């Protein structure tokens, strides 16, 4: 395996004539929290879906955990956790049933299952509510449980697609604490967002606009390059420059 968790080279995805991802090249190191920042429709989700093997790239190459997503999607899937903005849990199963189900599907070793289940319950703050129906949980708890279920198999790489949309600021803050814990444990976190405060939390950022990656660097580097004080200003300025250049 290379030193990078994710290697993307000239990745392009077209839907008909629409170019959703336009010639993107970047690498993500191990243990890094890598952010994808951009307005809606910038191609963030499409890129993540390609990296998870849900969509086939039109051209270019993507290597995740050492495996090519186009040719070995099953091997990629065994090494990643994925959580979308929809917190995809079964509403009509209980908390414990959701955890048990995903443990089985991910093929977590039988002797490790109780430990992993306890971990998922602890991190989502649902100890004592194992038998609650998932549909009765508030959004913040559902979000944490969805993350817990997505990482039961301890994947080295975790993809989070707008994981905090529709969740209150306090729940968002504590969710980012979780992301830091994962990163400190050596897991790579690839996260998309359109919240500027969240962008600040990332180790490195890629700014996406209309399918193109328009800048890449640490939050400090990006701010310095444009002489701006906040990520929001960086974001607006970068997009305005891109618009001006394309006219």
């Amino acid at each position: 395996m290379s030193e990078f968790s994710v290697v993307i080279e000239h990745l392009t995805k077209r839907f008909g004539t629409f170019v959703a991802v336009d010639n993107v090249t970047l690498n993500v190191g191990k243990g890094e929290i890598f952010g994808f920042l951009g307005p809606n429709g910038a191609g963030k989700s499409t890129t993540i879906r390609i990296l998870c093997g849900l969509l086939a790239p039109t051209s270019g190459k993507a290597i995740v955990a050492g495996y090519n997503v186009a040719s070995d999607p099953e091997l990629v899937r065994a090494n990643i956790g994925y959580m979308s903005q929809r917190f995809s849990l079964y509403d009509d199963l209980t908390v414990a049933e959701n955890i048990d189900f995903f443990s089985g599907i991910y093929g977590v070793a039988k002797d490790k299952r109780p430990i992993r289940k306890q971990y998922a319950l602890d991190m989502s703050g649902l100890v004592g509510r194992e038998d609650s129906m998932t549909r009765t949980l508030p959004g913040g708890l559902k979000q944490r449980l969805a993350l817990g279920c997505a990482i039961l198999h301890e994947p080295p790489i975790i993809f989070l697609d707008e994981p905090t949309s529709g969740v209150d600021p306090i729940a968002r803050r504590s969710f980012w604490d979780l992301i830091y814990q994962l990163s400190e444990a050596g897991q790579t976190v690839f996260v998309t967002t359109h919240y500027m405060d969240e962008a600040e939390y990332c180790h490195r950022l890629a700014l996406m606009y209309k399918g193109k990656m328009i800048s890449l660097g640490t939050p400090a580097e990006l701010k310095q390059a444009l002489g701006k004080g906040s990520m929001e200003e960086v974001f607006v300025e970068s997009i305005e420059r891109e618009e001006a250049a394309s006219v």
Partner: protein
Amino acid sequence: MWERIREMIIKELKQTLREPKMRATLIMPPLIQLLVFGYAVNLDVEHAKLAWMDQDRSIESRELLEQFTGSARFTVVRFLESEQDTHLTHDRSEVEGVVRILPGFAADIARGRAASVQVLVDGTNSNTASIVSTQCTQVIRQFSAKKLEKLQRQKLVGRAVDRPLFAPLPTLTIEPRVWFNPELRSRNYFVPGVLVNIIMLVTLSLTSMAIVREKEIGTMEQLMVTPIRPIELIIGKTLPFAAIGMIQLLFITMVGMLVFQVPLNGSPGLLVFSSLFFIECTLGLGLFISTISNTQQQAMMTTLFVFQPMFMLSGFSFPIRNMPEIVQWVTYLNPMRYFMEVVRGIFLKGVGIEILWPQILALAVLGTTILAISAMRFRKRLD
């Protein structure tokens, strides 16, 4: 592999059996259809109501009336006087038919001439009309046979007084005997058919809904990024509904036999065996519907759109041999058609695999084809 399939099956069964709404879908349709087709839909004609119009008023005409009233099939409810009454009673649907004895009836009989009885039947419902008409004819024929015999005897006796001799005519009597359903109970015909409908409707809609529901709430995307293989997903998604289909088969068979007294003349084992192939067809079709639908509404509409014509062309109530030839060819692609023949064959005729193998083979071929096509369409990609 089996581990993941087992997890899927446990999860599916939990989800299906826990929801009150889902449980209702499992119990209500079979119950309602059984009640409707077992009790309400009855094509048998018993105690048909007749009106009587006697324009002869003779001993013979009264004898014929006794023949009619003596038969359990008819109830004479009205006695009419005029032509106008005849129209009115028909218009008001007071009777199924009118028997009219024309003047000179007795005289014609006495002279050995053809005597006329007119039977007017309400043809609004063609099925009832043809049954009433046949039954009336039978009663009249019996009456005329009796009269003829009496006449012959009188003539034979009268030889002594030097009358012309008529040799006794040999009379042919037809005694129709109905096989497989001797009492011609429509219930015997419909209840096994309900079995086919229910298995079809329930397994088809459950399979398509179960997959599309996951697409709708986003868990399908979540499943796709797990190491589960498409074939495991398909097996895990279909086996629970196959099991539910089998349980419904047993339930409807029991109710049919115990409540509706429908005979199961053939082998229960063969019934179960052949239904496996039928369920293969319905699951394959359900899977196919789920690959072309994105929302539960779409899946539901498509299910109905597929089920309705298949039901019409299954021979459940409309005989396939009466359909235009092109439509008859189309029915060869309809799994319900074959299973309907198998089920009725086993229940009513009591025939075995030596007779029913072509139908069972057709089900196996259709089922494997549709299941294979759907499985190929069912990939773990979003585009």
